[in-house]
């Protein structure tokens, strides 16, 4: 049967097991949305393409599946860009479909024409401008394969309108084989032996988990290595949840805003085993001073990350799950005595009152155990990473690498659609909230019981904090001079609005929040002078926290 390009696209998406797409219509994708009418794929009409991209990301990260977002040409496509870059930095498997002006118009500066493959080439794993309707099945199959295999990432497919309209026979394309793309999955045996030897001899090993542990789905293997080596565990922002945060061996997040116990463990360890992480500058502090005593073993599926920021002693390229299974086999053979290490108390002193750390701990106490937390970017994000305890992979969803404000609310939308049974909480600040606000409309329309917790300090707190440390406390461009009435706003969207006025309200407000099964916006005022601490200032080693 002959189908048009748009119908072929929809068939191919179904073939890939896509059950939900996020999208925003427009002139160049008319045929695509027309074809979607006859599909069983759930279609979520977002309020802004950037929100669609972030929602697809939240969906993908909560579920471990490829997320899909469709937008029109020109501004539709450029509105995706921040979402694509966010996904690229955090290795999220997404496929973006954009409409393009007809092939004959490409290059003429036609209405709503933009070179989106050119624009997104540095922030996608790969992208395609479809020239021929016959190529569509192959391109779509390749795009999904590339997005989810190896180090996951976003892939964009730009479809000119005449390709969507052109007809041809649909032949499903199933056996993807790209000669130039063969991710390395098995670790090199010699390197694995070397790593096992170092791990076996180490007296104070530290294992650092990154987002790769979640992507590879190897939390169980990590736990086994921890038991066999007696290592302490630290996590990057992206790794939170991949190892139980309530475990005694877990020292918390490391880095600029890391927990003191985690940073001290890293600086004094004699072996640093890095799993699926990339030694980001917010993780290592001053690279010259990072883990000075340690032999560093780095396992990652992306060879380009190994040795990029920090020289390593043992590089291992491969899928973490495979490599850790090999390591476990050898560790069991060679090294039978489990070491015992005295763990320092990692309790962080916090003061009772309306401050984010204390409120977050109370939120955690009341929240159901299946809660997924998304965050925006800023102080609230670091406070959440420090004080909220994540015990399961895929329960903490936050923009790590790019640090995209406006991520949390749409990501919560995607996560809630992916996990309808879970409670989804978006933790945000009054600044970030206003960047992610368009999707309140989508959440309200779909009647999703998402909980948004706004820490309101009437200022852009993280920038204010940077100005506190680096600009001699001269504050510029950070204070909002008029307070937004978040409760009125909640009402406008038909959401429950709850405001924490005083310390004594906290538990009751959160209890009500989780009991009502409704879209709820909670506002919690905090002091604009509160700082995230301890902090490692620029140029310092991780042990030099202030």
């Amino acid at each position, binding site marked *: 049967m002959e189908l048009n390009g748009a119908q072929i696209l929809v068939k191919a998406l179904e073939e890939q097991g896509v059950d939900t797409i996020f999208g925003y219509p427009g002139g160049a994708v008319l045929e695509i949305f027309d074809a979607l009418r006859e599909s069983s794929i759930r279609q979520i009409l977002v309020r802004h393409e950037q929100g669609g991209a972030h929602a697809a990301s939240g969906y993908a990260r909560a579920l471990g599946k490829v997320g899909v977002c469709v937008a029109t040409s020109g501004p539709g496509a450029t509105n995706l860009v921040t979402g694509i870059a966010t996904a690229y930095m955090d290795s999220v498997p997404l496929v973006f479909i954009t409409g393009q002006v007809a092939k004959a118009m490409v290059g003429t500066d036609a209405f709503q024409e933009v070179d989106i493959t050119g624009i997104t*080439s*540095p922030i996608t*794993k*790969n992208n395609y401008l479809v020239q021929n309707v016959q190529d569509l099945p192959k391109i779509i199959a390749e795009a999904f394969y590339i997005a989810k295999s190896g180090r996951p990432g976003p892939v964009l497919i730009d479809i000119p309108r005449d390709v969507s309209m052109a007809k041809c026979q649909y032949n499903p394309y199933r056996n993807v084989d790209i000669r*130039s*793309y063969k991710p390395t999955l098995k670790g090199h045996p010699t390197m694995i032996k070397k790593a096992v030897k170092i791990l076996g001899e180490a007296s104070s090993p530290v294992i650092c988990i990154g987002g790769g542990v979640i992507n590879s789905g190897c939390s169980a293997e990590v736990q086994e290595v921890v038991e066999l080596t007696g290592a302490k565990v630290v996590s990057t922002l992206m790794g939170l949840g991949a190892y139980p945060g309530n475990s005694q061996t877990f020292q918390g997040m490391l880095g600029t805003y890391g927990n003191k116990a985690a940073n001290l463990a890293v600086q004094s360890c004699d072996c640093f085993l890095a799993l699926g992480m990339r030694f980001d500058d917010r993780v290592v502090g001053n690279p010259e001073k990072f883990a000075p005593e340690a032999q560093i073993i780095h396992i990652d599926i*992306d*060879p*380009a990350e190994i040795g*990029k920021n920090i020289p390593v002693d043992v590089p291992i390229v491969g899928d973490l799950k495979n490599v850790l299974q090999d390591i476990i086999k050898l560790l069991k053979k060679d090294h039978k005595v489990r070491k015992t290490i005295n763990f320092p108390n990692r309790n962080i002193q916090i003061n009772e009152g309306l401050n984010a750390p204390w409120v977050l701990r109370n939120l955690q106490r009341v929240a159901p155990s299946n809660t997924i937390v998304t965050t925006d970017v800023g102080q609230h994000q670091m406070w959440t990473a420090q004080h909220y305890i994540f015990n399961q992979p895929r329960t903490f969803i936050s923009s790590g690498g790019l640090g995209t404000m406006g991520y949390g609310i749409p990501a919560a939308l995607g996560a809630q659609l992916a996990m309808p049974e879970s409670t989804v909480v978006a933790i945000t600040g009054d600044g970030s909230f206003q960047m992610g606000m368009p999707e309140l409309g989508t959440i309200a329309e779909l009647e999703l019981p998402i909980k948004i917790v706004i820490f309101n300090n009437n200022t852009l707190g993280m920038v204010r904090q940077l100005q506190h440390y680096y600009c001699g406390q001269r504050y510029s461009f950070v204070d909002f001079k008029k307070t937004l009435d978040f409760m009125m706003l909640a009402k406008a969207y038909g959401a429950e609005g709850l405001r924490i006025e005083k310390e004594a309200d906290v538990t009751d407000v959160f209890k009500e929040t989780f009991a009502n099964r409704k879209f709820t916006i909670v506002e919690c005022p905090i002091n604009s002078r509160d700082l995230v601490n301890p902090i490692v200032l620029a140029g310092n080693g991780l042990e030099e926290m202030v």
Partner: protein
Amino acid sequence: MKHTLAVLVENHPGVLSRVSGLFSRRGYNISSLVVSETEDSSVSRMTIVVDGDEKIIEQVTKQLNKLIDVIKVSDVTHDETVDRQLLLVKVNADNSAKGEIAQLMDIFRARIIDIGKKSLIVEATGSEEKIDAIIKSLQPFGILEIVKTGTISMVRGAK
């Protein structure tokens, strides 16, 4: 130090811009880049000369390998290779100089391929050093115009 990379890529539109974009956005320095189709029409070969230390070259290689359209990257800097550039140069030449230039070019096995009233065009192939030497030897006559390719390299066959 200059490194020569032989890069096999899919012969698609847009691949060159992906490769050159990678160099510019990561701050790597291209000395020269030559691209052409190979014996297999679905594959193009780029010869890229990059300036950088071992660490930079390692990153360049790894980042190039990450591009889906890149099939293979080989650093041939330390291999036995044949390296060639092609030079066309237009030189000032009145009648008295023409003979002198012809003799000079013989030494380099370069050829005169066009003669004008007051100028001539020399064509030469050779290593970067040889091409530089030819240009230098022609400078006293007055060079009007130069065009040359980047280096192309091929690893020598087993002896």
